[in-house]
């Protein structure tokens, strides 16, 4: 973005003003996430910086909220529930979603548009509506307040991500690869394992990661379909903020940011790998 030497003064002023505006917006985007990290090391139960913290006095900082998080049975139960629910929901979404994406990408899929819209609908319908509907229907099935209910609900919310990412890796899939393989004597199983699987694996993994984070972050459906026994980390945070606001929430938030960073890096690496496999050059 270096300016050429012939730019006029007003253009220069505008250019720097524009960069300043963008910097301000970027700051707006990340500042709230960054500010939470130091606050979570607060030695006193406040949601703001104390004088000691601002003076970088070590006595102003402590790990007590992390200690609370790792020893409090409420939070530990929430961690366990979050992982159990997210892992099972992810397995379900990934299995059904990948299979469906393979079907949808075949040339002769009937009613493709209609079926795609139905399969993607859990992503589009506002969560409060899905949650209300699931609450009504699962109450008939006796699934309210059960792990199965929450897992099924989360799996439904996660499948669209798997369908979309796996379909995307199959777009422009060269069918002659399959023809070539079978003309060389490969069995359908061999074709699937040696040609299709390597191509879709990055898509499947990123879809699974998206399904995982969908379930891991989801709170509306858990609030309606689940109960205290199904409390997940977001559930615990929600009730924590509503009832007694303790800085342990900030410690949890910091750990959640860490998880998002890890997932983001994983997704980015996968995206690069897909591009490399499929030979797409960055433009």
């Amino acid at each position: 973005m270096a300016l050429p030497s012939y730019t006029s003064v007003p253009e220069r002023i505008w250019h720097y003003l524009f960069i300043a505006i963008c910097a301000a917006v970027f700051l707006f985007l990340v500042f709230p996430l960054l500010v939470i990290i130091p606050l979570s090391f607060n030695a006193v139960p406040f949601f703001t910086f104390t004088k000691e913290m601002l003076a970088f006095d070590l006595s102003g900082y402590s790990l007590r909220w992390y200690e609370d998080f790792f020893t409090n049975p409420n939070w530990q139960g929430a961690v366990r529930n979050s992982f159990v629910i997210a892992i099972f929901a992810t397995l379900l979404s990934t299995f059904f979603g990948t299979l469906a994406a393979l079907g949808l990408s075949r040339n002769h899929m009937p009613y493709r548009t209609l079926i795609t819209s139905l399969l993607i609908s859990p992503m589009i319908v506002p969560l409060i509506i899905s949650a209300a509907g699931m609450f009504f229907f699962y109450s008939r099935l006796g699934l309210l307040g059960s792990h199965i209910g929450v897992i099924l609900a989360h799996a439904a919310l996660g499948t669209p991500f798997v369908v979309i990412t796996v379909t995307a890796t199959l777009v422009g899939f060269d069918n002659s690869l399959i023809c070539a393989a079978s003309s060389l004597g490969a069995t359908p199983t061999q074709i699937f394992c040696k040609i299709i699987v390597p191509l879709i694996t990055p898509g499947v993994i990123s879809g699974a990661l998206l399904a995982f984070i969908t379930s891991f972050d989801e709170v509306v459906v858990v609030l309606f379909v689940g109960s205290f026994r199904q409390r997940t980390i977001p559930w615990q945070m929600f009730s924590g903020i509503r009832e007694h606001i303790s800085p342990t929430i900030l410690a949890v938030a910091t750990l959640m940011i860490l998880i998002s960073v890890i997932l983001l890096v994983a997704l980015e690496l996968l995206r690069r790998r897909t591009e490399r496999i499929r030979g797409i050059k960055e433009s």
Partner: protein
Amino acid sequence: MPEQILSAGRMPLKKALAASQRKDKLTAFLMVAPLLAFILITFLMPIVDMLYRSVDNSIVPETLPRTVVAIEEWNPDTTELPSEAVYAALHADIAAASEQRTHTRVGQRLNYENPGISSLFRSAGRKLKTIKAGPYKEAMIAQDKRWGDTDKWRTIQTFSKSFTWGYFVNAFDGRFNNAGGIELRPENERIYMFLMWRTVVMSLTITLMTLLLGFPIAYLLAIVPTRISNLLIILVLLPFWTSLLVRTTSWIALLQQQGVVNDFLVLLGLLSEDGRLVMMYNSTGTMIAMTHILLPFMVLPLYSVMKTISPSYMRAAISLGAHPWRAFWRIYFPNTIPGIGAGGILVFILATGYYITPALVGGNDGVFISNRIAYNISLSLNWGLAAALSVILLALVMVMFIVYDNIVGINNIKVGS
């Protein structure tokens, strides 16, 4: 007759092709079928159940089967009370229902339409047993003079069918009046139209704010070299992947009266200790937090559209004598409209259905229609009304989504970058 071309299996080629295509179709469908069945049970049937519940009134005819038949004859426009037969029917119905304790549920159902019926039914369940024989009319009115109120009978008659629009009428702040028509509720009971209006207005404001903030950074991302934009986009994706509750929590820490922003302004001397700004637990808080949360949904579609606009368009316009501003407005900006449309509708759809953030930071004047749906489900237990409100919200989202489909196309939904 020309000789038919035969396939390897000694079949006519046309037939063989049709057969293989049929097989292919079936295979494709069988692969999709498990997910379709799964989504049908876990997601679509709940939505259908919700549609059903928004008009379902079967509890009244099921609990009061004799009454709903007997009361059909009664003319509600008169001041005359229903006949002895209707009273006898209700007596029998409540006697039967109170054994299964279902009379309180039908009372609660009718109470949504006519406050007071719930307590009338509850006391009737206890006391009507003492009336052993007819004529029931005088005895019931003597026991509770509310049985002599035509208003109560009118409600029972209006809601005697298995299906009702009552919840929808309620959701639009209306009610059935004495003449059998629909009228608006008194001013102090109207909340839903206002809440819906507020949901739409606040969602539009949030959409506009995300556009104002998102446009410059999407533009910056589109014009800088890929090396830099790959780094900068992390600043957009990081909040995008961070839990909603984490971001809401950070805004509480920032904006509350003893929070970081207020402390900072007091430290700088811009605010006095008593003059701390109230930015949380009202509509300002909801607006700021939701703009932040939804901003990536605006930036990402905008960026993906802007990336495809060739910089040579602008250069051509400028070299033909257009002022850079004019070139931007007449050439660049119109090209970004698909992105603005896509991002705008996406943000609007997401904003109208938001529940968590308004519930946590909205206070009283920052709540949305979704908060009222939640309230009706878990606190006032009026599930029919909650279903009707959800259906209305769903209809709004569907309309927006059809618009979105026409602008962007459902197959072009992308996740992440």
